[in-house]
């Protein structure tokens, strides 16, 4: 029994030795629940603006990439402990996050955050506002006089407005627009908040080589206009 265990362990170790070769596969971590940035399509695959962008960036940087989904709440801890190599999940560049992880240059301009509510006359200063936990919107509401209710998924923030638990939801405008368009009960308010420094790719601070590769790929996409074409296609906001 012991010898069987030892020999399988030995085989496993030699096999892993043969395969090991730096960043031969880059694992792209995303949430898969935030259209149009990233979502799971009908076929069960990761789709959206960031899927197309990420595939193009990997092609330009000559990397083999693989897509992984992870819950938003634990998306940074799992990057830091090495379960995947990048976060490409509509994550805005903020100082707090920058202390823990590194960001590439931004690949979208700061998208204004918008409010969606059941009626136009909600009290945004003193009412109850919903936001996804650990987002720039949640941090923004916490600073104001309004009461913040946080949810783990974007879906639940919308549901909270519809069932009356919250007066309005604050989220990225690109995410809220298709929802407000299609649901007759919901409407987008005129007021917008300019928060965040645009969206970037999150990487481990020790992973400088990978950061340079992605930075170069983003620059080349910005220069030849292909990034703007993608932004227009998925209606993410203004182009560069």
């Amino acid at each position: 029994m012991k010898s069987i265990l030892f020999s399988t362990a030995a085989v496993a170790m030699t096999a892993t030795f043969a395969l090991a070769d730096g960043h031969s596969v880059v694992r792209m971590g995303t949430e898969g629940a935030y259209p149009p940035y990233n979502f799971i399509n009908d076929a069960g695959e990761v789709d959206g603006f960031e899927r197309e962008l990420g595939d193009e960036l990997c092609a330009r940087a000559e990397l083999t990439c693989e897509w992984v989904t992870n819950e938003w709440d634990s998306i940074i801890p799992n990057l830091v402990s090495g379960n995947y190599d990048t976060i490409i999940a509509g994550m805005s560049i903020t100082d707090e996050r920058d202390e823990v992880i590194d960001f590439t240059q931004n690949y979208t301009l700061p998208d204004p955050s918008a409010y969606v509510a059941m009626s136009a006359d909600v009290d945004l200063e003193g009412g109850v506002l919903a936001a996804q936990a650990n987002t720039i919107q949640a941090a923004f509401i916490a600073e104001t006089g309004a009461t913040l209710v946080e949810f783990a998924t974007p879906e639940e923030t919308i549901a909270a407005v519809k069932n009356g638990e919250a007066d309005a939801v604050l989220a990225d405008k690109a995410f809220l627009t298709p929802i407000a368009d299609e649901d007759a009960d919901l409407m987008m308010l005129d007021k917008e908040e300019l928060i965040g420094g645009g969206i970037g790719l999150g990487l481990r601070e020790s992973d400088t080589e990978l950061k340079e590769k992605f930075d170069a790929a983003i620059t080349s996409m910005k220069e030849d206009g292909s990034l703007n074409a993608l932004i227009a296609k998925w209606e993410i906001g203004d182009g560069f």
Partner: protein
Amino acid sequence: MFSFCTDPSTLPDWQWMACYLTTGKHMSIYWSVLTVFLLLAITAPTALAFGFAGASAARSRIAPVSWLGRGYIAIVRGVPDIAFFLFFVIALDQAIEYLRHRALCPDWTEPVRQGNDFVVCAAAKMPLGNAPQWIHETYGFGLAVLTFAIVFGAFAANVLFGAMRAVPKAQLETAEAYGMTPRQTFWRVMVPQMWVFALPGLSNLWMVLIKATPLLFLLGVEDIVYWARELGGTKTSRFTEYPHGDWRMWYFLALLIFYLMFTRASEIVLDRLMVRLTRGQATTGGEAQRKAAV
């Protein structure tokens, strides 16, 4: 899936539903049902083995072994499941990678902990960074099984420990009087008789285990509750061929029925097992069976 599914927006209701329920995304929830069954099928016997080992150790006459068994039972039973699942799995994963790192990359000079980052050499990654996704998922699943087995094993150990003590003393003394060694007494007299005392406690554990599978999500395994939430959420027509409102209620209703049927089926099986184990035992249940048969 079906040939008529090319343009769902024009389909009559039942065809729309047939197409909707067979999308690639829905296949994920059907797979996750199998994942849950597989998890239970592997975890239950493993946890029982942990429990048996823990209970035997706790009964040992060798003091350190006994302390080990009692310590395992007391510590794991006392720590909240969620804390255990969050802490233990990450710690275990990093411990494995650290040991591999020390063994495989002796020339590595940089520290493993760099600020917030946990960095080991590429060859020590578990599983390797370039391994296909299914290996990552299988590894995560393996960690989940081990964690479940350790947690539920501690509870099972406590149940079995009690059951071993519930076997009538006279039975053990008789075995000794017949000249059996302690080892023979344990395996031939005590173990066959303890199950009837252990089964009520173990059946409770099984029921709790069935319902604990959503904890899998904490470990990165996508289980049925995750998919029910994801599939039931509002879908707008820009991003799917099958737009619908908030259908989470219906998905969770389906889950409710699934879990109720599953626990009911378990109850029926466990009741039969109880009848079988009671046969010929020196308990009131065994006595009642004997009288009914006469």
